[in-house]
């Protein structure tokens, strides 16, 4: 096995002790930090604005990072990463590397069922009848944290984001047309009225606000 020599470490950033360049790992690490946790692809302009760096510099760094993860650097070859940084529709995001798709798929499918859990069904029901609604409000109604269930429902395309609450800024959720399709109705208005099932739901609003 060749012990390949890496002649030099990555060139150090120009001495910049202000802003992100001064942090451990520098601007490149700052980009990695953001990209590791964002869900939606982010543009170089958004990144440049937040990091207070020129867009050109950010684009350069992004390309360098992408190349590095693929195994190529200015100072020689490195181990390719299991993730890649890709620019999709103008935005940058981390993805798992295509080579590993079989492994990742088997991991994703492991333990998956074709059925929603009771908790997921009930959360979906609350969202259907209270839409558009924030996760916090659904949590208050259900009495438990619903973050992961909401993720599952989104993944299953049964619900989707519907803007932000004007006051709290929280993301609001609504049901999708796929949901209507699965339920076999045309519009949300066709959902059966709740009244016959539950007298006294009218003042539910008070309860919710009070309890959260």
């Amino acid at each position, binding site marked *: 096995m060749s012990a390949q020599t890496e002649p030099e470490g990555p060139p150090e950033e120009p001495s910049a002790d202000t802003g992100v360049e001064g942090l451990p790992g520098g601007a490149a690490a700052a980009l990695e930090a953001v990209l590791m*946790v964002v869900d939606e692809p982010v543009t170089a302009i958004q990144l440049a604005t937040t990091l207070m760096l020129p867009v050109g510099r950010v684009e350069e760094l992004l390309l360098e990072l992408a190349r590095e993860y693929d195994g190529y650097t200015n100072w020689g070859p490195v181990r390719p990463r299991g993730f890649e940084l890709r620019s999709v529709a103008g935005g940058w995001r981390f993805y798992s590397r295509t080579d590993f798709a079989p492994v990742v798929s088997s991991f994703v499918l492991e333990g998956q069922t074709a059925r929603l859990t009771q908790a997921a069904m009930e959360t979906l029901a*609350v969202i*259907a009848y209270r839409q558009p609604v924030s996760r916090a409000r659904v949590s208050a109604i259900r009495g438990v944290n619903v973050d992961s269930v909401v993720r599952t429902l989104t993944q299953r395309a*049964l619900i989707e984001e519907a803007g932000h609450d004007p006051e709290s800024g929280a993301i609001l959720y609504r049901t999708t047309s796929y949901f209507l399709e699965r339920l076999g109705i045309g519009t949300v208005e066709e959902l059966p009225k709740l009244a016959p099932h539950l007298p006294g739901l009218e003042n539910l609003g008070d309860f919710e606000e009070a309890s959260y």
Partner: protein
Amino acid sequence: MALPDALPAAVTADSDAAAAPEAAPARAGFEVRLENFTGPFDLLLGLISKHELDITEVSLAQVSGEFISYIRGLQQLGQEWALDEASEFLVIAATLLDLKAARLLPSGEVENDEDIALLEARDLLFARLLQYRAFKEVSGIMARRLEQEATRFPRLVSLEGHFAALLPELVWRHTPEQFAELAAKALQPREPAPTEVGLAHLHAPPVSVKEQAEIIGNRLQQGRPLSFRALISDADGTLVVVARFLALLEMFRDGVIAFDQLAPLAELTVHWTGPDADWSSESLSEEYDDGPAAAPAGEDTQHERAD
């Protein structure tokens, strides 16, 4: 005794009045009135540290005055107290007052049972205070840890499209009506957690002191002295033993029985000294059986039976 069961009985013994049970009132922003304090222990700790006193050495009596004037201040704000919370403040205030009063008396001698009870109350208060302080300290550590951890963000992204597409097609069996039923159930206001902890289990099965007094009375009136051991030989549980013991104390106070004990911890013998015929357990003071509204509903029936 219907004390909020959150309180160790020994601490609350002095202050039954403070714990008058009632349906828990609506919660009316009690936390707000506590200002910076999250409870009586917090307040007490605050006062102790204000005076730079060592919690393990301080005589709690030193901060009693301030503690009491603080809750008086709260009262004067005129809002309704949440009883179960107020009671805890009052319990502690009562204990502190006792300790303060004890300090005014010549010290160093433990003379009677009251002194001992006072010492026990003080030790319990210390123990609870120290315990509370320990939790307060670790909660501070936890809070700092949480804050520090909040500067890390987990990768929490939705599944890449091509993997999401692999998920098995959802099996959907709900009709709109079934779905509505589910929604109705999910939207139903959940029973608010009871603000008062049920005491029913503590009294089951209920044992009446009067009833036990009646049994003891009947046996002793036959004329032969009986040992305490004999008197409880047929008791079918600790509660009955306790009730019989309390009944004996009551009967002793009423002067209908007398105790003989040859040596400390030796066999306790009880003999009848009261009137032969017309004694009834109904004449006992009503300290045990009649107080709390929280007592089991069946109690009236029992009184009748005891007659």
